[in-house]
């Protein structure tokens, strides 16, 4: 029998689950506005429907439970008892019990072992007890409302009767204060007789659980299996490919062109429509949250005013499921750790109830979901300390990191489970999981917090994963797709000065883009398609930005040797097209380099580069904060320095602008000519000065079989090299630092990443060693 009915049972389960969500919403609304007859009627109907269906399928426990609930609700609806915390609590327990029975049915086909008779008794008791109370009171002789008044303005009445009813005898006079909005209610007790009469005309409550109010919606919607939708979308994807193929056929035949154009238009429209079928309002996820917040607030002893905005924002349904857990987590965090207990809030001069806002909106082709609270905020200093303690950053660097960056540490795995952070600052239990989940669907998370003011977490997710615009680039004879959402611009590589130029720091190619230094990844060598090329003279740089990382991907340019290369050439190297994202199988996706593949119009398969994975694999440094690079008062962006360690152990810096190359030589390659030391480079020699010697330090002797690192300076500085022990980093000068105390060989001392660093006096250096 179970198998015969399976299809119907499935339908029943789907419907009931939706109904339960509605029930949660209704109960919450009812708590806010007790006695709202429409809500009561809706709740009653829902429970009644569940009862009826469970009887039909022979689920006796469910039926009994729903019956008790219905009885209680019936009395509430008829105004025979009032809604208080206890009744609401009992109703919530009933919803939970119904939900768990439904889950058991879904999983096992039976109602499960749990015994709900206690709960049923509780429901019955609540109904009976309250009824007795009401009866006592309604037996008090009270004057009735004037019928005319009550029917003329039924809502004014309805908004108030339940509080009036619920008032204990002592409180009755308050409820009937003449200036209260319920002025038309003369005294407590009276309404008990009035309301039932008033309710009926406002909402004709169907006694047999009719669904009249929902029928118009039901008629215009159809339940469709998700797999069916998915296969429709797949087919549309195929059609798009075929369309692309059609378009790439070279023909002059006007008839063919006309048909081709028509197919083109229809396919585009069809594609758009098909994508829409996958879209669902985020409501589906949001609807649970008011209940979550309520329960959490109760259990944490907090008062929370929860608002939801933009629940009709649409998102691909597969994504909707993926944001459920991360959002639940963020909301839990906000209530549990973000919002302070009422007393603390009052002490801090805030309203007792904390505000928690959930907001969804469309923003530049993505959906942004924002969870913000007006709680205590995150103690950035604690996070900073914790990050240092965990070795995520050195103490010196931590000091100079802007707060925004420090907050990002919260997303580090395992970072926030530390008790110290959660108890003091509040946020971040399992934030790494939140980030991982969001990133898995191509989204990003950022966090802003101000101590005492609150915390806002923004989750940005793509609208859909199925179809997206992408840049198709050529590289070493292969083609790759780069998601266009991440691409900010395309730049031609120019060897000549004046254009965008790849600068030759051997292991770390960078490019200057409007004052910023952007690290580059040569796609061909990175993917092992071609042997390393130190500095390519042609190609196109695709500038991308993911998370807090900006980098350029160098792909092949056109082969044209002409100097002037315009837009057209760039487009030839990289074409934009709308691609259908196809999975490449979980095993290859596990590589973390490709997020999928697509089939182009010519039938060729093209891999989609996973930019996040690429930046991770390429070990790119996070982007410099713009606010530290470009000072707010309009000063020039602070200069960047190459930081090195000399063999004597001194930390020195060379302005990056004066460096042309970094090279390594074996010590055996260093030749001595008179008092000068030289290394061969090409067909000439480069004089090399030991940094320690320039600084007047004793020079340790070179190990015979070691290597030395040489910083080669530009021609203006004689093109000479400076030998150092190791090259450490490229850093901007800390905003506040100024060169100070020039001494021999030192132009000044700067604070770089919080450490005092001597800047070499390069112009003085030329005097010391005239060009070879």
């Amino acid at each position, binding site marked *: 029998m179970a198998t015969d009915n399976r299809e119907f049972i499935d339908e029943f389960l789907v419907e009931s689950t939706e109904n339960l969500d509605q029930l949660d919403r209704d109960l919450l609304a009812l708590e806010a506005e007790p006695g709202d007859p429409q809500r009561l009627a809706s709740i009653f109907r829902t429970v009644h429907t569940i009862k009826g269906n469970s009887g039909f399928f022979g689920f006796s426990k469910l039926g009994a439970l729903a019956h008790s609930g219905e009885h209680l609700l019936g009395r509430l609806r008829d105004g025979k008892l009032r809604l208080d915390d206890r009744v609401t609590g009992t109703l919530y327990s009933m919803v939970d019990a119904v939900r768990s029975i439904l889950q058991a049915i879904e999983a096992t086909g039976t109602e499960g072992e749990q015994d709900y008779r206690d709960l049923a008794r509780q429901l019955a008791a609540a109904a009976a007890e309250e009824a007795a109370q009401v009866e006592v009171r309604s037996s008090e002789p009270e004057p009735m409302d004037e019928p005319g008044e009550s029917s003329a303005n039924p809502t004014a009445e309805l908004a108030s009767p339940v509080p009036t009813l619920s008032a204990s005898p002592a409180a009755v006079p308050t409820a009937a204060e003449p200036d209260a909005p319920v002025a038309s209610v003369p005294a407590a007790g009276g309404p008990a007789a009035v309301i039932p009469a008033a309710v009926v005309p406002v909402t004709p409550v169907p006694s047999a659980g009719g669904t009249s109010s929902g029928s118009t919606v039901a008629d215009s919607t159809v339940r469709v299996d998700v797999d069916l939708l998915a296969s429709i979308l797949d087919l549309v994807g195929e059609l798009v490919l075929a369309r692309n193929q059609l378009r790439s056929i070279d023909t002059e035949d006007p008839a063919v062109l006309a048909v081709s154009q028509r197919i083109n238009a229809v396919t585009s429209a069809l594609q758009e429509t098909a994508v829409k079928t996958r879209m669902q309002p985020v409501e589906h996820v949001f609807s649970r949250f008011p209940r979550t917040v309520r329960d959490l607030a109760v259990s944490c002893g907090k008062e929370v005013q929860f608002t939801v905005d933009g629940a009709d924002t649409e998102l691909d349904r597969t994504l909707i499921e993926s944001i459920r857990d991360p959002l639940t987590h963020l909301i839990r965090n906000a209530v549990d750790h973000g919002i302070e207990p009422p007393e603390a809030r009052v002490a801090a001069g805030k309203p007792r109830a904390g505000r928690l806002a959930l907001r969804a909106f469309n923003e530049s082709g993505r959906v942004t979901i924002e969870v913000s609270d007006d709680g205590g905020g995150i103690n950035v200093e604690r996070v900073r300390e914790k990050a240092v303690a965990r070795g995520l950053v050195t103490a010196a660097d931590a000091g100079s990191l802007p707060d925004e960056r420090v907050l990002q540490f919260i997303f580090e795995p395992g970072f926030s489970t530390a008790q110290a952070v959660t108890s003091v600052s509040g946020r971040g239990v399992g934030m790494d999981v939140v980030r991982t989940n969001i990133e898995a669907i191509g989204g990003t998370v950022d966090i802003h917090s101000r101590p005492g003011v609150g915390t806002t977490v923004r989750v940005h997710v793509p609208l859909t994963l199925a179809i997206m615009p992408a840049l198709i680039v050529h590289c070493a004879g292969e083609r790759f797709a780069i998601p266009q959402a991440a691409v900010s611009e395309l730049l031609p590589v120019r060897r000549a000065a004046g254009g965008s130029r790849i600068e030759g720091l051997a292991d*770390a*190619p960078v490019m200057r883009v409007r004052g910023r230094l952007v690290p580059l990844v040569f796609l061909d060598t990175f993917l092992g398609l071609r042997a*390393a090329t130190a500095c390519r003279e042609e190609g196109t740089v695709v500038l991308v930005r993911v998370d807090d990382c900006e980098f350029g991907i160098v792909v092949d340019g056109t082969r044209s040797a002409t100097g002037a290369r315009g837009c057209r050439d760039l487009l030839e190297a990289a074409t934009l097209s709308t691609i259908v994202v196809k999975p490449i199988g979980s095993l290859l996706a596990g590589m973390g380099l490709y997020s999928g593949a697509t089939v182009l119009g010519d039938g060729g398969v093209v891999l989609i580069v996973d930019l996040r994975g690429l930046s991770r694999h390429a070990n790119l*440094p996070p982007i410099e904060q713009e606010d530290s690079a470009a000072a707010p008062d309009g000063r020039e962006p602070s200069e960047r320095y190459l930081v090195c360690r000399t063999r004597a152990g001194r930390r020195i810096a060379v302005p990056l602008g004066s460096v042309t190359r970094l090279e390594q030589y074996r010590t055996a390659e260093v030749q001595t000519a008179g008092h000068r030391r030289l290394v061969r480079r090409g067909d000439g020699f480069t004089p090399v000065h030991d940094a320690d010697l320039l600084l007047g330090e004793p020079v340790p002797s070179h190990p015979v079989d070691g290597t030395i690192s040489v910083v080669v300076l530009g021609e203006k500085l004689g093109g000479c090299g400076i030998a150092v022990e190791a090259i450490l980093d490229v850093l901007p000068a800390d905003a506040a630092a100024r060169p100070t105390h020039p001494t021999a060989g030192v132009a000044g001392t700067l604070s770089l990443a919080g450490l005092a660093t001597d800047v070499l006096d390069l112009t003085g250096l030329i005097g010391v060693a005239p060009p070879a």
Partner: protein
Amino acid sequence: MPFEPVRRWCTFLVGDACFAVDSAAVIEVLRDRGLTRVPLAASGVLGLAHLRGRIVPVVDPAERLGVHPTGRNTRTHLVVALGDDWYGLLVDEMLDVIEIPPARIERPTAPGAAGDVVTGTYAAEHQLVHLLDPERMIQALVRQGAHHAARPGGTHGGLD
């Protein structure tokens, strides 16, 4: 004795050894499809093909099966389903689909390294047929890779 249905197996040659996969898992045999390289993937991954709207990674099972075919010029791919994903196996020659009574399947004996991906052996008239577990084999072939991707090579590897 419980009834066990006779399963049908697709047999094929890799080198001169005969292997078989359960025909229920077989989707199609592709011939002469161009493949798209997957840079930095494990060496057993030959590339990606396109079949009925899906992307099909194609792997070369020879090494994993311990056979070393000489002078191959085959472009035949046997596409099998692994859960929701499809994978292609490069084979030298497709043979028949045969029925093998479960009782006739013997303990696996397999050439070379194939031990853990062969689930049983069937002695056909002329040769031994090694029954493959395509899932295990493909996982073993595809799983490596990408971890060597962090190798510097024109990439930004930090300055020190």
